[in-house]
C-alpha cells in the first residue's frame, strides 16, 4: 500500500504526518475553526507505506524547518532514510525481479528523488496553492453536512477499533460486519479517525534502526507479533523491490512493510477507577461457593487487583522516564550542546551578533513564510540571522518538545510506535490440578467488570476455550461473552468479556484491564515469544496480568519462591482430598512390549484391578505410533468385554472418543500428551507408560497424574508411572505433588478423613 507524507506547521512546531487520503487532511487542517495549522507542505504523494511510516516516526522536527527549501527537505529525508535499514533481510524471488528488470530496460528502480517532491499545499492567509486546489476539487466534502457526516463516521470508526490492532483485510471484515456503510470508503474515514486521535496508523513491519553504537543494528520487526521479519520479496502493491514481511504471524494475514496496521486507542479509563472500590470483602466471595483454599487464593488475587490504582501513578511516572530510549536522549543532548558551542564560538569571533528574543515578531514570520511560498531563497544576511534565531529556538524548543512528548494529548495524531517499555504487573495463581481454577477466576472477572473494565481469559488451546465458554456464560448471564478462536463467528463482536485462544490476542492492542492466561505452560504458548508479546500487548499499560497454572514453568517458580512474583498457591483440590501420589512400577519399555506382544504382568494386574473397581483408565504413551498396536495388546489382556480405544492428535474422531470415554462407553483410552490437561473424567485411574521418556517432562507428568481422583465420589484414584528407569522428572513430579499435599495439610484445607490417609 502507498501513502502520502506531509508536514504541517502548527503553533507548537512542525509535525510530520502520513495520509491515506490527503484531501481529508487538507480539509481537517484548513477549514476547521479550531485548527492551529499555519501551513501544509506535501512531501510525497505516494510512498510505500513502510517508508512513509519510518520517515514520520524518525523525523526530528525543529523550527529550522521554517527555512527549508526543496533541496533541504529532500536532504533531510535522505538523512533519516540512511539511518533506517532493512538489515538482515533475505530477499526472496530474486529471479523474478531480474526478469522484470530485463523487461523494463533499465529496471524498475524508483529513486527517492522521483517520489519525493515537496509541494506547498496551503498557507494561512494565503489559501490553497494550485496543487492544493486541485486536490480539493475532487469534492468529497462539498458542504458542511458532508463534513459533519464524515466526522460522525470517524467517531463510529474509532469506537469500533478501540483496543484493536488490525491489518487492512481484517479491518475490512470488521467493517463488513459492524459498519458496512464504510466498507468501501474506509481510507478517508480511517484518516479522519487518525486525525481525531482515536487510532494510530503504522506499518506492519518496521525497519531496523542502526544506531551509531550498535553497528549491526537490529533486524526489522513485525509490529503486530514482535518477531523479527527476515524475509522480503518484491511487492506489487508498494512497488518496492524488497518489501519485508513477517513469517511468524502469516496465519492471521500477512504483515509486511507496506501493510497498514491500524491500532485503536485504549478505551478511556475514566469510568474504571472512578468508583474507587475498596478491596473486595469476603461477602463478595461468598456467592461463588468456593472451597477454603480457593477462597484464600482468590482473595489474594483480588487484593492484588485492588492495589493497582494506588500503584498506578508511581508506575506511570517511571514509565514516562523510560519511554525515551537512553541512547536517543544522550544523542539529543550532544547535538544540542554542539549547537550551543558553535553559537558561542560564532559570537566570540564576532561574525554574528547574539539576537534578542523580540526579533521573533509575528510579522517577520509571516514574511518569511511568504518567501517560502514563492520558493525564493533568502539573502545571505537574512539567512544567517534566521539560522541563529532558530538555533536558539531549537534549544528551547527541544526542551519544550520533550515536555510535550510526555503530555501527548489525545488530539495529537502521531502517537509514536514503541514497544511496551514496562510490563503490567503479574500475579501467579498456582493451583493444583483439579483445584477448580475456573471458579476462582469468576470473582476476579466480576470485580473488573463491576469497575467498568474489560477482561480477557486466554488459553493456548482451542478445546479449553470451547469448554470454558458455557461455564463463563453461565456465571455471567447478563454479560455477553465473545468467544474467539480460529474460525469463530464472533470475531468482530464488541464485548467487555472475551474468551480467546492466545493467537487471537494478536488482534488486540492495549484493550484489557485484566488479562488472565490459563495453562500458560501449555503448547503453543509456552516458549513462544510471539504469543507472549501478543498477550503483553493486549493488556493495557495500567492493567494487570494473572497467570493460572498447575505446573508453572521453572523460571516462574523460582521468581515466585524468591518473592519477585506475587503469587497465591492453591494446594488442595476443591473436594478437600489430597492429590493421588504416583506409584512407580518397573516395566519394560513399550517398544519391547510391542515386539514381544505382551505387557508385563505387574502392569496387567494393575490394569485389571482398575477396571474391576469400575474406573475409567487413561493410558498415556509417548509416541503416536505405539497407540494402535498397544490397543490390541491391552484388549487381549483385558478380554473383549472391556471396550479399549486409542486416540491422538491425528485422529479426526478425537472429540467423539473423549465424549464416549467420559460417558463410560469406552473404558480404557490410550492417548498421548494431547489429553494431559483440560479433560475431567469422574472416576479415573492413570497409567503412564514409558514415564522415563524425554517427551514427558515434570510438568506433563504432574498434569497427567492430575487426571486421577478429580471427583468427590472417587477422590483417591491410582496413578502409575511404568518405566524401566527412575528419572529426575518422575522424581520431581512426585516431589511436587507431595509438597502440595503437605502445604494443603498445613493450611488445614483437607478433610479430617482425608488427613488420616496421609503419612
Amino acid at each position, binding site marked *: 500500500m502507498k501513502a502520502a507524507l506531509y508536514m504541517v506547521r502548527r503553533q507548537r512546531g512542525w509535525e510530520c504526518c502520513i495520509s491515506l487520503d490527503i484531501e481529508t487532511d487538507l480539509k481537517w487542517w484548513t477549514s476547521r475553526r479550531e485548527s492551529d495549522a499555519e501551513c501544509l507542505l506535501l512531501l510525497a504523494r505516494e510512498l510505500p507505506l513502510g517508508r512513509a511510516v519510518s520517515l514520520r516516526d524518525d523525523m526530528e522536527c525543529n523550527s529550522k524547518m521554517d527555512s527549508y527549501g526543496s533541496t533541504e527537505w529532500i536532504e533531510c529525508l535522505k538523512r533519516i532514510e540512511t539511518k533506517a535499514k532493512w538489515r538482515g533481510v533475505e530477499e*526472496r*524471488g530474486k*529471479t523474478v525481479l531480474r526478469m522484470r528488470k*530485463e*523487461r523494463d530496460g533499465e529496471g524498475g528502480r524508483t529513486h527517492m528523488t522521483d517520489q519525493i517532491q515537496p509541494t506547498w499545499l496551503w498557507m494561512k492567509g494565503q489559501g490553497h496553492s494550485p496543487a492544493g486546489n486541485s486536490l480539493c476539487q475532487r469534492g468529497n466534502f462539498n458542504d458542511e453536512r458532508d463534513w459533519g457526516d464524515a466526522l460522525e463516521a470517524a467517531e463510529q470508526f474509532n469506537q469500533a477499533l478501540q483496543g484493536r490492532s488490525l491489518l487492512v483485510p481484517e479491518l475490512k471484515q470488521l467493517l463488513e460486519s459492524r459498519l458496512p456503510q464504510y466498507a468501501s470508503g474506509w481510507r478517508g474515514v480511517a484518516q479522519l479517525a487518525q486525525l481525531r486521535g482515536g487510532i494510530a496508523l503504522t506499518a506492519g513491519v518496521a525497519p531496523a534502526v542502526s544506531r551509531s553504537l550498535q553497528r549491526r543494528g537490529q533486524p526489522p520487526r513485525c509490529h503486530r507479533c514482535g518477531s523479527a521479519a527476515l524475509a522480503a520479496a518484491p511487492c506489487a*502493491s508498494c512497488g518496492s523491490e524488497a518489501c519485508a514481511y513477517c513469517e511468524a504471524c502469516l496465519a492471521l494475514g*500477512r504483515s509486511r512493510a507496506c501493510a497498514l496496521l491500524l491500532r485503536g486507542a485504549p478505551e478511556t479509563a475514566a469510568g474504571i477507577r472512578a468508583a474507587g472500590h475498596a478491596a473486595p470483602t469476603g461477602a463478595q466471595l461468598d456467592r461463588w461457593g468456593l472451597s477454603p483454599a480457593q477462597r484464600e487464593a482468590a482473595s489474594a488475587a483480588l487484593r492484588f487487583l485492588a492495589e493497582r490504582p494506588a500503584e498506578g501513578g508511581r508506575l506511570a511516572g517511571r514509565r514516562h522516564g523510560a519511554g525515551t530510549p537512553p541512547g536517543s536522549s544522550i544523542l539529543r543532548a550532544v547535538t544540542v550542546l554542539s549547537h550551543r558551542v558553535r553559537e558561542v564560538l560564532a559570537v566570540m569571533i564576532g561574525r554574528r551578533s547574539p539576537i534578542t528574543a523580540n526579533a521573533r515578531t509575528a510579522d517577520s514570520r509571516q514574511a518569511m513564510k511568504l518567501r517560502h511560498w514563492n520558493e525564493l531563497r533568502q539573502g545571505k544576511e537574512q539567512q544567517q540571522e534566521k539560522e541563529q534565531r532558530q538555533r536558539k529556538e531549537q534549544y528551547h524548543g527541544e526542551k519544550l518538545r520533550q515536555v510535550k512528548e510526555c503530555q501527548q494529548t489525545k488530539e495529537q495524531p502521531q502517537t509514536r510506535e514503541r514497544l511496551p517499555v514496562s510490563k503490567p504487573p503479574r500475579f501467579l495463581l498456582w493451583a493444583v490440578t483439579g483445584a477448580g481454577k475456573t471458579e476462582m477466576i469468576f470473582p476476579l472477572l466480576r470485580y473488573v467488570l463491576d469497575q467498568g473494565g474489560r477482561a480477557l481469559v486466554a488459553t493456548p488451546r482451542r478445546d479449553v476455550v470451547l469448554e470454558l465458554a458455557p461455564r463463563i456464560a453461565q456465571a455471567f448471564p447478563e454479560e455477553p461473552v465473545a468467544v474467539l478462536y480460529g474460525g469463530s463467528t464472533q470475531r468482530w463482536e464488541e464485548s467487555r468479556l472475551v474468551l480467546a485462544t492466545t493467537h487471537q490476542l494478536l488482534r488486540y492492542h492495549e484493550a484489557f484491564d485484566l488479562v488472565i492466561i490459563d495453562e500458560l505452560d501449555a503448547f503453543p504458548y509456552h516458549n513462544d515469544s510471539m504469543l507472549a508479546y501478543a498477550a503483553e500487548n493486549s493488556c493495557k499499560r495500567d492493567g494487570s496480568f494473572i497467570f493460572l497454572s498447575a505446573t508453572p514453568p521453572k523460571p516462574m517458580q523460582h521468581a515466585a519462591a524468591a518473592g519477585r512474583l506475587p503469587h497465591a498457591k492453591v494446594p488442595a483440590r476443591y473436594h478437600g482430598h489430597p492429590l493421588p501420589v504416583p506409584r512407580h512400577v518397573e516395566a519394560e519399555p513399550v517398544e519391547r512390549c510391542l515386539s514381544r506382544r505382551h505387557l508385563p504382568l505387574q502392569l496387567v494386574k494393575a490394569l485389571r484391578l482398575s477396571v474391576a473397581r469400575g474406573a475409567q483408565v487413561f493410558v498415556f504413551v509417548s509416541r503416536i505410533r505405539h497407540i494402535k498396536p498397544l490397543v490390541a495388546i491391552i484388549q487381549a489382556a483385558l478380554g473383549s468385554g472391556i471396550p479399549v480405544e486409542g486416540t491422538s492428535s491425528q485422529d479426526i474422531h478425537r472429540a467423539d472418543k473423549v465424549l464416549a470415554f467420559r460417558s463410560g462407553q469406552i473404558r480404557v483410552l490410550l492417548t498421548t500428551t494431547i489429553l494431559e490437561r483440560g479433560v475431567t473424567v469422574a472416576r479415573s485411574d492413570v497409567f503412564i507408560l514409558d514415564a522415563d521418556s524425554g517427551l514427558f517432562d515434570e510438568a506433563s507428568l504432574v498434569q497427567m497424574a492430575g487426571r486421577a481422583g478429580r471427583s468427590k465420589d472417587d477422590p483417591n484414584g491410582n496413578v502409575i508411572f511404568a518405566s524401566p528407569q527412575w528419572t529426575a522428572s518422575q522424581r520431581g513430579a512426585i516431589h511436587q505433588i507431595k509438597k502440595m499435599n503437605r502445604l494443603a495439610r498445613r493450611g488445614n484445607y483437607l478433610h479430617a478423613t482425608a488427613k488420616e490417609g496421609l503419612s
Partner: protein
Amino acid sequence: MNLSRLLSPLHQLLAPVGQICLACGRPMQTGDRHYPEVCRTCVAEIPWIRHPRCPRCGRHIGCPDCTRPGAFRRPFILNRSAVAYDSRMREWLAQYKYRGREAYAPLLARMMGQAYKTLASEMAFAQRLGKPWRVDAVAYVPLSSQRLAERGFNQAELLASGAAAAARVPLIALLERARDTEKMSLKNRRQRLNDMRAVFRPLPEASDLLVSLLESRRDRDRRPDRQIRSPLRLLLVDDIYTTGSTAAYCTEGLLLAGEEAGIRLEVYSLTWARS
C-alpha cells in the same frame, strides 16, 4: 543450575544448524538435492504427472472433458501440468498464494522448470525432432491490477519465471486482465465458461513484442526462410488447470495479438497443478 545456564549457550553454539522443512515443519538433516527447502519425505510425496493419461489436457486420470462429444475445442495445442492437485499440493499453493508465504516461491518456480523440461522432452520425442524442442517465449496469465495490489505478487508470473529460466527464453507480459471475475471456485462449469469471455486482452505493446521476438529468432537462426514459415511458439503459464477455460481465453487473447502483428502463433499451456 547455574552451570546449565552457562553451558546451554555453548551447546547451542555447537549444535548443528537446524533446518526446518518448509512444508511439514519437521526438522531435517539434509534437504533434497533439487529442492533443499523441503525434506526428503515431502519431496518423495510430490505427485508428479510424469505420464499424463490424456494427451490433450495432460490429466493424470481419465478426463470427461476431452472424451465428451465435440471434445477439446481449445485454441491451444495442449496442456501439461507439473503435479496432480491433491490435498498436499493444495496446501502448498494455498500457503504461497493466499497466505503469502513467499519462501515457497523458489521451490514452486523450480518445479515449473522441471515441468517444462518434461514437456520439452515429450514433444521432442513425439514430433521426432532430431534437435531439442523449444518455445520462443513464456507468457503468463495476468492478474487484475486491483488483485495484484492486494496480493503483492502474481503467482503465475513467478511460476512462468521458473519455466522461462529452464527454457532460457524471455518471460514476457502480453496480456492484461480487464476486470475481475468473481471467485471461480464458487461457480459451476457453465458459469465459468461464460464468465471469462473478453476478460483477457492483449496489452497495447503486445504485437510489437511479438514482432521483436520473431526478429530476434531470425537473427539467431541461420536459415531465415524456413524459420519464418514456422509459427512463433509460446508457452502460457498458470498455477492451476481445472476446465481449461482460463487458458483458452488467454490463448484467444494471445492469438489476437498475433493477428494484429501478422504472426502465426502456436500456444502451449503449462500449469503447476492439474485438478
